[in-house]
């Protein structure tokens, strides 16, 4: 039970933090004032540019640009950096570390009979930096945007209404269900003396999952009735209204300029 309880608590804390991370989205920073539609476009453009880069120096420059944008958007630099770098070694390490030994090239060092190559190390660093920089831009976007703005921006890009409805409801109820699950686990914990064995704890987990499915089903049914009762026909209409202003034009121009300069530099025109 301890492991499951800890996992559930951490999941809940993480998801709750995701909601309360709107506290950054409410700050009066640079990116918070940018039209969310423009932020989505810029995010796609910047990430596409980063993943196509081969020059480590340019990727580092893009990473520092993300950090600068974070600071200008009044995000705490340390927390922002932690969010990026906590997961990078886990996910990229699985792919990047073997490549150090698998990519042929000049030998750098030997370990446990495996030869690491300079080309392999370069590729691993390039890959890790690309991922870290792309994740930085994605996190910048999510930390500086409120969910309703994201949904409204997606709707303005003609994302199907059903997708918007499902994502809105998921975002709303995932926290509620996580809390229900955690409460149920605490209630069981309160009636237990000592720890359960592994088999028993998995059986208990199965019961919790089953009960949560039943609750989710009931909640879903009630939710549908509640929507129907207020005139719902087939989709939720996002209500955000956006207007392109001076800062948005300046940010568009800056993004375009960065991409043009990058292309020019990588092609040796600068």
């Amino acid at each position: 039970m301890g492991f499951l309880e800890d996992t559930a608590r951490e999941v809940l804390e993480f998801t709750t933090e995701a909601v309360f991370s709107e506290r950054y989205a409410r700050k009066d920073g640079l990116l918070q004032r940018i039209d969310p539609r423009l932020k989505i476009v810029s995010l796609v453009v910047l990430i596409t540019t980063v993943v196509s880069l081969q020059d480590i120096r340019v990727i580092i420059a893009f990473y520092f640009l993300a950090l600068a944008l974070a600071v200008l958007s009044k995000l705490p630099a340390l927390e922002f950096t932690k969010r990026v770098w906590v997961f990078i070694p886990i996910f990229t390490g699985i792919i990047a570390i073997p490549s150090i030994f698998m990519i042929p090239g000049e030998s750098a060092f030997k370990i446990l009979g495996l030869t690491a190559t300079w080309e392999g190390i370069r590729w691993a660093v390039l890959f890790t930096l690309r991922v870290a920089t792309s994740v930085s831009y994605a996190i910048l976007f999510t930390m500086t945007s409120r969910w309703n703005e994201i949904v409204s921006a997606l709707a303005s890009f003609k994302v199907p209404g059903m997708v918007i409805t499902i994502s809105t409801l998921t975002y709303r109820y995932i926290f509620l269900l996580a809390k229900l699950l955690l409460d149920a686990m605490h209630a069981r914990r309160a009636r237990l003396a000592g720890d359960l064995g592994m088999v028993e704890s998995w059986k208990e987990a199965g019961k919790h999952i089953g009960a949560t499915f039943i609750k989710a089903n009931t909640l879903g049914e009630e939710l549908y009735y509640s929507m129907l009762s207020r005139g719902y026909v087939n989709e939720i209409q996002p209500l955000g209204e956006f207007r392109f202003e001076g800062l948005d034009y300046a940010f568009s121009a800056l993004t375009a300029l960065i991409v043009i300069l990058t292309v020019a530099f990588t092609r040796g025109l600068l």
Partner: protein
Amino acid sequence: MKVYELKNVSYRYPTGEWALKDINMEIKRGETVAIVGPNGAGKTTLLKLMDALLMPTEGEIIFEGRPVTEETMTDHEFRQKVGFLFQSPDVMLFSATVLEDVAFGPVHLWGKEEGLKRAREELRKLSIEDLASRHPYSLSGGEKKKASIACVTSMEPEVLLLDEPTRDLDLKNRNFVLEMIRGWKAEKKTVVVVTHDLRLIRLADRVYVVNGRVLFEGTPRELFSRPELIERANLDVPEIVRLFHMLGLEEIPLSVEEAAEILKRWKKEP
């Protein structure tokens, strides 16, 4: 004029169990009607039938002279006229912000611009404008209830179906709900309230005791004059009512103030 007429209405759950059997009921315009009964008596199901969210297995429901059918479920006029306050605010608040939730009904009825205008106005009327941009997950129980009420009242319904509106609320928020209902009563709106709250029952013009079937129909005073019915309805008997029953007095007060008046008269009589 009759707003609702229920003729021999029965409802069977998909599991085959009967929730309601042969319900006959009339609700007149401008009336406040309380429906009481033990847990699992089918009271919420009855409200859902009245809101055309469920269709009776047998019998007929007439709303303003017209039978409630499957088409009523998505009928704009019906949805505007009848508002349903669900017991759990969590099923009423499903959007990314409170404003979007309050605007959900009006937007479906009157379009985006008018819907948003009415939603903002409703938030202002209930003095909860400060909640407009908040995520429903971050609201307290009382705030969620107020936001849920705004979701219903923003549609300006003539008939209000309320499912245990004071449940799980503290005294201040219970009083808020009571005041809202007093206001609707004064505006001659039709209110049907499922409740266990004695203060709400006292507000009603008529009371139905339901436990799968209608066990009683009458005024609150008539209900409190019959202890066996109060027991069957699984209601708390007010202390003052118990005292009068114990004293064998025929006249039953509904409040301490009424009891004081009766006792003063009793004292004056030779």
